C-alpha cells in the first residue's frame, strides 16, 4: 500500500469532511431547536451555490462581493421557507413535516433546472491557486482554503451559541420548549432564527463545496451524506456533527479513491446501518426515553 497516497487522500477527505461538518452543523441547529429533519438542506446548498454563480459569473460581481450576497440569498430562502411551509406544520406528525421538506427539495431542484438549466457548471475561481503542502503531503488548494473558511465559520458559530443572547435562547428552546416559553423566550422567533442560521451554514458550505466539485441541479444529493453524518453523530449533538462530519468525509474519499466512485455511498451507508442497529441515537445523541 502506498502510504503517501493514502495520506494525501486522507487529508483531502478530512478537509472535505470539515465542510461536511459545517453542513451537518446547519442541519443539527435546525433539528435541535425545531425538531424538524430537513431533507432539503442539500438543495438549499445547491441553490445558494447557483446564486453565487449568477452573481459572480452572470453579473460579473467580484467573488468576494458575490459570496456574502449568495449566502444572504440562501439564508433568506431558509427564513422564508420556515415562515411559509414549516410554521403551519407545527404540531403535525414528524413524518408530515419531513415530507414537506422532501417536497421543498423537489421544488428547488426543478426551479434550479428551469432557471440555470440542467447542465453541470463550474464556479468562477475565487480561492488562491498555489498548491498547499503539509509536510510531504499535497492538498488541492480549493479544498484546503474551503476547509479553512469552513472551520473559521464553525468556530464563530460555536462562540455565538455559547455566549450570545440569541445563542442562549436557541439552546434553551432546544433543551425545553415549554420552559423556554415561560421564561419569556420568543420561541417562534427562535424557530425562525434556527432556520436562518442553519441555512446560512448550509449556503456557505454549498458554495465552498461547489467551488471544488462543480455544480448541477443534482448537487443536492450531498444531503444524503449529511443525513448519514447527523445520524452517526447523533441528531441533536453539535460535537457529534463535527466529528462525524470529518469521519464521513474521510471515509467517503478513501472509499472512492481505493475502490471506485460507486463505493462512496455504499461505505457511508454501511456505517449508517451499523450505527442504526447498535446505537440508534448516534455516538453523541441524547437517548430519548418515551413515556405514555
Amino acid at each position, binding site marked *: 500500500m502506498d502510504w503517501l497516497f493514502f495520506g494525501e487522500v486522507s487529508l483531502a477527505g478530512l478537509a472535505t469532511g470539515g465542510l461536511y461538518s459545517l453542513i451537518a452543523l446547519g442541519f443539527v441547529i435546525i433539528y435541535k431547536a425545531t425538531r424538524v*429533519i430537513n431533507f432539503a438542506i442539500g438543495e438549499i446548498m445547491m441553490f445558494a451555490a447557483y446564486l453565487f454563480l449568477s452573481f459572480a459569473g452572470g453579473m460579473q460581481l467580484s467573488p468576494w462581493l458575490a459570496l456574502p450576497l449568495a449566502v444572504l440569498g440562501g439564508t433568506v430562502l431558509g427564513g422564508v421557507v420556515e415562515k411559509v*411551509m414549516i410554521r*403551519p*406544520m407545527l404540531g*403535525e406528525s*414528524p*413524518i*408530515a413535516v*419531513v*415530507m*414537506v421538506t*422532501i*417536497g*421543498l*427539495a*423537489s*421544488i*428547488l*431542484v*426543478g*426551479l*434550479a*433546472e*428551469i432557471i440555470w438549466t*440542467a447542465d453541470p457548471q463550474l464556479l468562477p475561481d475565487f480561492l488562491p491557486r498555489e498548491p498547499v503542502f503539509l509536510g510531504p503531503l499535497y492538498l488541492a488548494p480549493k479544498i484546503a482554503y474551503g476547509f479553512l473558511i469552513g472551520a473559521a465559520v464553525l468556530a464563530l458559530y460555536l462562540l455565538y451559541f455559547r455566549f450570545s443572547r440569541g445563542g442562549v435562547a436557541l439552546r434553551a428552546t432546544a433543551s425545553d420548549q415549554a420552559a423556554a416559553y415561560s421564561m419569556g423566550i420568543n420561541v417562534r422567533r427562535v424557530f425562525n432564527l434556527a432556520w436562518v442560521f442553519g441555512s446560512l451554514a448550509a449556503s456557505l458550505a454549498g458554495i465552498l463545496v461547489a467551488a471544488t466539485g462543480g455544480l448541477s*441541479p443534482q448537487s443536492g444529493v450531498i444531503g*444524503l451524506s449529511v*443525513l448519514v453524518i447527523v*445520524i452517526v453523530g447523533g441528531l441533536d449533538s453539535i460535537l457529534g456533527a463535527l466529528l462525524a462530519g470529518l469521519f464521513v468525509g474521510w471515509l467517503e474519499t478513501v472509499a472512492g479513491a481505493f475502490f471506485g466512485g*460507486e463505493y462512496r*455511498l*455504499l461505505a457511508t*451507508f454501511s456505517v*449508517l*446501518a451499523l450505527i*442504526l*442497529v447498535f446505537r*440508534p441515537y448516534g455516538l453523541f445523541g441524547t437517548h430519548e426515553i*418515551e413515556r*405514555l
Partner: protein
Amino acid sequence: MRIGDAKHTYLADEALWTTTTQQVWFALLLLALLVFPFVANSYLLYLGCLVGIAVISATGLNILTGFTGLISLGQAGFMGVGGYTVAWLSLHTALPFPLALLAAGLLTAAIGVVVGLPSLRVKGLYLAIATLAASVFLHFIFSEWAAVTGGMAGLSLRPAQLLGITFHNDFRMYFIIMPLAVLMLLAARNVFRTRVGRAFIAIRDRDISAEVLGIPLLKYKLMSFGLSSFYAGVAGGLFAYFFRVVTPESFPLAMSIFYLAAIIVGGMGSILGGVLGAIFMTLVPEGLKLLTAVVTPFYPQAPVFMSPLLGVVFGSLIVGFLLFEPNGLAEIWRRIRRFFHLWPFRT
C-alpha cells in the same frame, strides 16, 4: 338523502359494502374497467396499465406508511427486487407468469422483512433513513452484481406467458394488471377488517400503547413490512413484464418519493386514498405533457422546461396537500359523498 341504514352489529358496520347502491356502483366500475381496453386507444391503454401498476405499489406503501405509520423511502428498491426477480426467472426458467409474480412478491417480502428488522430498535425518521440505506444497498446490488442483474445495461425479458398465450402488447397486459390490481385492493381492504390490520392501525396511532395492549410490536411491524413489500414486489414484477426491460435506472430514489407523494396526495391510511393518489400522480405528468404540446407552438422552448416543471409540480403538490388538505383526495371524495348523502340538507 340516505336514510334507514342504521347498523345493528359491528359486523355490519365493518362490511365492505353497506348498501346496495354501493354494490351497484362497484359492479358498474368493474364493468367499465372490463370494457375500457376495447374502446380505449393505445395511449389510454398504456396509461391504464401504468395506473394499475402504480395503484398496486401505492397500496403497498399505504399499508406500511399510511396504516402502520412506518415511513419508507425504499419502495423503489423493493419494486426493483420484484422486477429483477421476474426478469431473471423469465430468462432462466420457463415459469408461467403467475408463479413468477408470486416468486417476485415472496422474495421481496423476505427482503422487506430483513429491512424492517431495524424497526426493533428505531422508528419514525430513523427508520425512514434505515430504509433509505436499504435502497442504497439494493441499488448497489442492481448495478454491481452483473452476473445476475446484468449490471448497468440491465436485463431484457421475454413477454409474460401462460398456457401458450403470450402477453406481448398493452392490450393483453391490461388483462393481467387490472384484475390483479382489483384483487390486491380488495385483499388490502379486507386486511384492515381483521385482527392483523387493526393491530397495524393501533401501532400507527401509538406504538407503546399498542404494546401495552398486548400487540407484539416487532412481529406486526415485520408483518407490515412483509405485506407491503409483497405488493411492491408484484408491482415491480408487472413493471418488468410491461416494459420488458429492467435497469438500475428503472427504480431511482425519485420513484420512492413519487409513491410517498402519491399516498400523501391521495390520503394516508385509506385504501381509496392510495388508489386516487396513484391515479392522480400518474396522470399529472401526462397532463403536463398535454399542456406542453398546447404551449409549444407559441413558445418553442416549452419542452425543455417539461421535466424540471414536473419536479416543481410534484413538490408543490406534496407541500400543498400537507398544508391545506392533510387527509388528501380521499377526504375531498368523502366530502362530495357526504354532500349527496345529506342532500337536500347541508352539513
